[in-house]
């Protein structure tokens, strides 16, 4: 069931943050360096270990990839010794489950971390997927075996997303809801996705097109199609998507927002980190303040101050809205240019 709280104390860029996500769609905005991706990676790591049983501290190392895989490098940098705490909460059959990891900046290996709540946490596995900014499907053949055998410097989210993409389709007929979602994706992709010898293909009117010949945006839609088709995205699972706008034409943001809303209605919790006005407005127009979408703005209290956040049910209520601010600034400069010799 959905994540209900994330607490980050002296972790990476954060001093102290208690983030309360909504059960539906969480659209996270913020300037570069305000921790959007870090927040999502922590939440994803917690979801993933509920299924794999990997230590939470170990998973944090794998998804953040600190230098030398030294866990202590994830503690917020300050003079002297310091200790961080990362805690994730969720509701599961009227119980609140908590998973936490605490470790010092001297910690080099995962076993030095104090992990609490791991047993009940993994007693109720939570399906999740993290779609990173860079598209991986075109580079997939051989990547997983390389990743499992060698120390390749790739955050584990890349290997994980391929694992999920390679899952075979669910048994039995596809239910009506999933058929609708799949067909909504097939329109812009003009085809369906097929996997052959670890290679991904788009099967359409032109025959089978390998993913390396497709536009990157189409490959991302293809990934979403696979995740819906193979049942990774089912009720109760969690989707994390870092910058869904990357490589997609803005005209596709509307259909994509429709899919997000349908997934949310089907009981999937969604986290999106975005820098894009159109993505936010498409979500805002669909949710109309109903609470299906929550907008979270991460920001620093002062230029080098601590990171905090503000949440709103509507685009208009986002504060501070750094993306809107960019347009306000452009608008003002455009009027200013026209008034260069100000009328008196």
């Amino acid at each position: 069931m959905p994540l209900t709280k994330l607490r980050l104390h002296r972790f990476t860029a954060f001093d102290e943050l208690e983030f309360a996500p909504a059960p539906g769609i969480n659209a996270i905005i913020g300037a570069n360096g305000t921790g959007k991706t870090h927040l999502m990676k922590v939440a994803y790591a917690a979801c993933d270990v509920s299924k794999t049983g990997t230590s939470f501290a170990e998973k944090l190392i794998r998804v953040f990839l600190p230098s030398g895989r030294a866990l202590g490098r994830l503690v917020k940098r300050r003079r002297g010794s310091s200790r961080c705490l990362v805690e994730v909460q969720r509701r599961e059959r009227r119980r609140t489950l908590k998973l936490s990891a605490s470790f010092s900046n001297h910690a080099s290996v995962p076993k030095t971390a104090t992990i609490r709540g791991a047993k009940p946490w993994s007693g109720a596995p939570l399906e999740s997927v993290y779609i990173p900014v860079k598209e991986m499907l075109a580079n997939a053949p051989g990547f997983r075996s390389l990743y499992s055998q060698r120390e390749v410097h790739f955050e584990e989210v890349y290997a994980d997303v391929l694992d999920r993409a390679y899952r075979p389709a669910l048994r039995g007929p596809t239910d009506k809801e999933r058929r609708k979602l799949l067909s909504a994706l097939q329109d812009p992709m003009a085809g369906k996705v097929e996997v052959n010898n670890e290679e991904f293909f788009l099967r359409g009117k032109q025959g089978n097109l390998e993913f390396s010949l497709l536009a990157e945006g189409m490959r991302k839609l293809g990934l979403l199609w696979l995740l819906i088709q193979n049942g990774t995205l089912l009720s109760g699972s969690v989707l994390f998507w870092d910058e869904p706008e990357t490589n997609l034409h803005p005209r596709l943001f509307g259909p994509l927002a429709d899919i997000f809303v349908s997934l949310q209605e089907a009981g999937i919790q969604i986290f999106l980190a975005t820098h894009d006005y159109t993505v936010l407005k498409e979500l805002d127009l669909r949710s109309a303040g109903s609470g299906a979408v929550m907008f979270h703005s991460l920001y620093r209290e002062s230029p080098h101050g601590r990171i905090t956040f503000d949440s709103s049910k509507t685009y208009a209520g986002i504060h501070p809205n750094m993306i809107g601010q960019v347009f306000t600034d452009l608008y003002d400069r455009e009027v200013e240019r026209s008034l260069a010799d100000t009328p008196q």
Partner: protein
Amino acid sequence: MTRLQEGDLRIALPSSAKVSKLDDPATHGLSHCMKAVDFVVELEDRTLFLEVKDPDDPRAGPRERQRWAARFKSDRLDQDLVQKYRDSFLYQWALGRVQKPIHYWVLVGLEQLTEADLLSRADALRRKLPIDVPASTGWVRFPVAACHVFNANSWNRSLPAGYRVSRVTGAASA
């Protein structure tokens, strides 16, 4: 200070501005075939064609709001705005009054429009007026010097202090 009013919106302009109301059947006597912007404002160095659209007018009933919503779809509104500009330009030209660069300002009383919305609306309208004439095709004059779409918020924020918009009813943030 020069004041003018259109529906529920009251607009203050610098006192040097000379305003004439153009959208009046008696003005050009051709209302069966010509449209007109609401106001022509003569400033020292330029002429403003000012058109006011006010969907947020608190006195509008539900049916009027529905009509507004339909008209506000970009294409229909832009067609209307383009015709108003061109007909007004023609009328001013016929009166021998086109002597200064003309700036087209559209004030939309719709406060939920963001700056991103206003920017894209202004860009779309500029393409249709049009504001840019093709190079090397013989055009020697530019019929439109500039075009902006404002709402009350952006008007009050981005224009100099002498230009202000407020609501007569005081209902909106203007």
